[in-house]
């Protein structure tokens, strides 16, 4: 038999069998224990496999990455905080850091802002489901495919070659000279163009989540506010928006995390040239192009630390929500 088939069978049958066997064994072992100890021990025994997986695949690599970030390129010696000092001390990294910040702010602003706007508008039209589907579809496209699509959008050919890019074709019909869009690094213009690709994909996500939350608001609340003397703008600002706040927070954190993970779009559309590199991109480049796992690990740790406060706020908000539910 093909050894790959054997492996597949072992995985499909073996893994559940091992888990069931584990549960059976622990239950047998629990019987030997006293009445008092049993209920205390049981949850931990049931949790143990999941905790073990977390330890092996999450905790251990995290610690490993942290340790590696303190070592030199070859991993032979500890180098203190040299890798961190390097990261914050060279222009390329600082531009990446700046770009990641732009990603974070612009992507979140566009997706949440436009997502909310669209959610409010589609709520009032008859063809709501169609409109929502159309806006949501880009999320189903892979990052690479989306990048390719937008490469055509921003495409630039050196004149006199004909312009096939959508934007330059449009400029051409208006008689304006073509622009090499993704090469314009003034005011991080090209980075913002890349962010727009991601925003195109994720606005639908924000819209769907916000639209669901919007429908969860009791319409009598809005009517009560109108009767109380509120204008439509006041109803939105003082009733709708505060009630949407928890959902906006969830979408915002999701978008912040997505922004910090941005890599594919940069890789496909500019390969990090023209000052469009982002932090995650620097990490990959250090690891594979420059063979420096120490520096790559340091960048990974920096990204992790950047995400922790966002997650902490998110979790705290979630708990606060649960408390008044």
């Amino acid at each position, binding site marked *: 038999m093909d050894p790959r088939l054997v492996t597949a069978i072992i995985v499909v049958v073996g893994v559940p069998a091992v888990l069931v066997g584990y549960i059976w064994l622990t239950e047998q072992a629990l019987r030997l224990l006293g009445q008092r100890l049993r209920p205390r021990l049981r949850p931990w025994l049931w949790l143990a496999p999941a905790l073990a997986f977390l330890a092996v695949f999450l905790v251990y690599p995290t610690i490993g990455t942290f340790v590696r970030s303190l070592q030199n390129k070859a991993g032979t010696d500890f180098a203190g905080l040299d890798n961190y000092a390097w990261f914050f001390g060279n222009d390329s990294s600082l531009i990446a850091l700046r770009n990641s910040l732009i990603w974070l702010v612009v992507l979140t602003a566009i997706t949440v802002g436009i997502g909310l706007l669209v959610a409010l508008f589609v709520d009032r039209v008859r063809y709501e489901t169609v409109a929502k589907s159309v806006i949501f579809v880009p999320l189903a496209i892979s990052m690479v495919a989306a990048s390719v699509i937008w490469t055509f959008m921003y495409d630039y050919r050196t004149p006199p070659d004909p312009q096939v890019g959508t934007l330059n074709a449009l400029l051409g019909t208006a008689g304006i000279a073509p622009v090499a869009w993704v090469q314009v690094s003034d005011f991080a213009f090209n980075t913002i163009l890349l962010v727009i690709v991601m925003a195109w994909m994720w606005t639908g996500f924000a819209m769907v989540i916000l639209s669901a939350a919007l429908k969860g608001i*009791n319409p*009598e*609340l809005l*009517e*009560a*506010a*109108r*009767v*109380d*003397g*509120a*204008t439509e703008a*006041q109803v939105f600002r*003082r*009733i709708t928006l*505060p*009630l949407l706040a928890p959902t906006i927070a969830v979408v915002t954190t999701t978008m912040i995390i997505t922004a910090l993970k941005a890599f594919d779009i940069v890789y496909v559309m500019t390969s990090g040239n023209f000052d469009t590199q982002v932090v995650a991109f620097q990490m990959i480049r250090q690891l594979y192009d420059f063979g420096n796992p120490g520096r790559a690990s340091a960048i990974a740790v920096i990204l992790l630390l950047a995400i922790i406060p966002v997650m902490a706020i998110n979790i705290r908000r979630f708990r606060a929500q649960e408390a*008044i*539910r």
Partner: protein
Amino acid sequence: MATVTFDHVTKKYGEVVAVDDFTLQIQDGEFMVFVGPSGCGKTTSLRMIAGLEDITTGTLAIGDKVVNDIPPKDRDIAMVFQSYALYPHMSVFDNLAFGLKLRKVDKKEIDRRVKEAAETIQLTNLLQRKPKELSGGQRQRVALGRAIVREPAVFLMDEPLSNLDAKLRVQTRAEIARLHQRLKTTIVYVTHDQVEAMTMGQRIAVMSQAKLQQVGPPQELYDHPANKFVAGFIGSPSMNFLPVELSGSGETAVLRTDGLQIPLPSHYRSAVGAVTGGRFVIGIRPEHLDVAPLSGPSTTVQARADVVEYLGNEELLHVEIAGTDVVAVVSADRRVRPDDVLTVHLPLDKMHLFDAETELNLPRSAA
């Protein structure tokens, strides 16, 4: 304080008519109740006063100002919603103060009015709570308070008691009535519960199938229902109806149905003459039937007790008369048992007679 005037108001949703040619003048300071079964148009009418529904045709005026095109915020009305619609992210204080803040009332004045309203509805020690931390009854009071604090020209209440348990409902009913006596502000109150309507309203507008059926004080609706619908809707248990045919004329005219002949009361003699076809429906309230002789003119019928519902002070007797289940409310010391054969006394002076075709209550002549 203000009057509310409906002048031939119609509301359509596409082809569906929700309120049909509604004309009604609500007096300044009046407690008006809109009552009717669900889907009769009462809530739609209330929401039109609030400005939450557009008016298809006709005019609606608050005071002497036509408000058809005036948004809710400029109508000087306050509304209590069925779901209470308290702002969940605001404390009780902020819920009460919201309308005043929007109107840019002075902060000290807001403080004073909110405290005063909180005292009226006994919520002073809950002002810092969020709606989620309140019981159903307390939320209901906050909703009332939010309306009171605004000191509007008209209060609108949309089934405000329907989410309370029976005991609390009776209590709050009295509170709202007391509130009205004190504030003397026009109240328009919507309910599907005729007991609420009868106990609270100075006048009641009974609606059914998008149409106003009758409007008047509770006593008038009870004594002189305009048609069969109002007769059956007002009063509990409901009025008994027996379809009958008229035969004979003059002194000897009788209303006849299976095994039952009722002499036509003289005060209906002129009215039945105007009805062609001779088919009528008799209406008698359960509390007007008895198993003992009545003081006024009456007739009797033999009937077997089917079900007896004992209520302590009285009994609800279900008896079968001419193939129809008829309910009689009698004193509990009659001690009727199921299957007892009874002599049921029907009062002729309190009997109503409806035209079977139009379902209108026939007018009585003085003679």
